[in-house]
């Protein structure tokens, strides 16, 4: 079983987000980058699938500038076997088709049985790259996966539907699936894992200049507030007093 797992670096939730001078992205200074949340679940699921099948390889793949290697190194320290870094000097790419094409070109020769990705990134939130990559590589695809099982050369996935419904879907391999947060409990890297990761290989690939993007950002901005909010200030006692007044006199539920 040869498994690829896509990992992406995104600004951490508590990083200050200031809009860049060209209004096309955020200023990266003072931003700390972390592995995208649902990608961590995808890494864990890949490692568990490798462990269950008894043999095989997990390859962590990331597209991005030099710093993206840290996301790959983190996956290696948790147990992934090697990495592929698809170099992008421009730190922000706003077209999932373009991103998936570059990944497909870098990964096509590897003949992966399975590609795992996080459901969506916490920055752009396209939720498309893993699916497009699957299509480009001739794979079956499934999204919002909450459980996986390998049996008789097929992959069974439990897909999350809307409003608390689920469905089991059986896919032929090779397959590209996106993993929903909460599917497992991601492990922490062990000290041994961190030391061992230093010897693992990260192959660096520079994509050819391909087609122009199919969509792009023309402007990033701070959303305009549309609702009028009464901010209740003061001491805790004053806040509680006003809240109770609101509940009783304005919303009238007590």
């Amino acid at each position: 079983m040869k498994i690829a797992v896509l990992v992406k670096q995104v600004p951490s939730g508590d990083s200050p987000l200031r809009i860049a001078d060209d209004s096309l992205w955020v200023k990266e200074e003072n931003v700390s980058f972390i592995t995208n949340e649902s990608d961590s679940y995808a890494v864990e699921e890949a490692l568990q699938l490798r462990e269950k099948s008894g043999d095989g390889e997990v390859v962590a793949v990331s597209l991005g500038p030099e710093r993206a290697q840290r996301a790959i190194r983190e996956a290696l320290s948790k147990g992934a076997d090697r990495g592929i870094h698809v170099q992008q000097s421009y730190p922000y790419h706003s077209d999932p088709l373009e991103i998936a094409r570059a990944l497909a070109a870098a990964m096509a020769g590897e003949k992966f049985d399975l590609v795992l990705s996080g459901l969506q990134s916490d920055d752009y939130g396209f939720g498309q790259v893993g699916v497009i990559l699957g299509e480009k590589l001739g794979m079956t695809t499934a999204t919002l996966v909450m459980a996986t099982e390998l049996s008789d050369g097929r992959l069974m996935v439990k897909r999350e539907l809307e409003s608390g419904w689920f469905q089991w879907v059986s896919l032929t391999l090779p397959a590209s699936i996106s993993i929903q947060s909460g599917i497992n409990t991601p492990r922490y890297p062990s000290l041994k894992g961190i030391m061992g990761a230093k010897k693992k290989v990260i192959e660096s690939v520079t994509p050819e200049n391909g087609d122009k993007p199919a969509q792009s950002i023309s402007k990033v901005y701070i959303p305009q507030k549309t609702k009028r909010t009464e901010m209740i200030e003061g001491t805790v006692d004053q806040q509680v007093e006003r809240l109770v007044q609101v509940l009783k006199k304005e919303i009238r539920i007590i």
Partner: protein
Amino acid sequence: MSILVVIEQSDGGVHRMSREAIAAGQALGRDLDLPVSALLLGNDLSSRCETLQSMQLHEILKVEHPLLRSYSSDGFSQALAQVIQNESPKYVIAGHTYMVRDFFPRVSAKLNIPFLADNIAYRVDGDTLILNKQLFSAKLAADFVPSDDGSCIISFQSAAFQEDDVATGSEVTVREVAITLDDSSIRSTSEEPFQEIAGAVDLSSAEVIVSVGRGIGKEENLPLAKELAQALGAELASSRPVVDAGWLEGYHQIGSSGQTVAPKLYFALGISGAIQHVVGMKGSKNICVINKDPEAPIFELADYGVIGDLVEIVPKLTETVLGVKS
């Protein structure tokens, strides 16, 4: 040049978000002076077709095929790609549902046309269509534009448009559209959908909801929220992280993967306001927020906001509410 709205079924009828997508399509059609048609994909489409015939549409395109009887990403992506190739609509519009997320990116890949996903609004500037999408869990927003003037696929977030705004019409022409699908190209099989927990609470009928998020801190603090809910006669709900942590059962969850609610009061405790949560509660009549992070995007939706530590405020609030009631 035309607009094509892709219709999804839900409980045998037209999905709520497909109705919203028709409202979006009609609005765009008026702005750009383009005819708007609807597309039905599947098998046994008569009842949905009837629903659509009372709407103001140019045409209803109907694609019926035995291999589209149940949903598959392989089947639906091939079918939609063929329709787009044959009909060459300028804009293909849909609600940003889980099914759309599952197969639309493949259509985009097959045809090499952009899929501008999960937008909250659009505007037209000269000849250019600009889509508004939220970034970083709604902390920022961005304008997206397609790079050329070929076909493009667009999805809108839940409640970006209102189904009440769908313009009505009558006797819309139905046109059957033929596609070719090969049995061997459907490489997946699906089992029947199921719900995990029996006896789940139907939060959609609750008048008052007290909802907890990651900001509650730890499982031991949950009783604070439960006691407030009890004092207010409210149902208890949560955002996804609380369910993922195993602190509450999945049926308490509000949002895109949980329930959609519109109570008289939605009391959000320690909820940051990620888009996935917001789509499930933004129709609430009154939203009250307690959060210690003044930057939390949930405050954007709040009618009443308190910046502070809920562990300190909530017990006092419960006590005072109980005092007032007795």
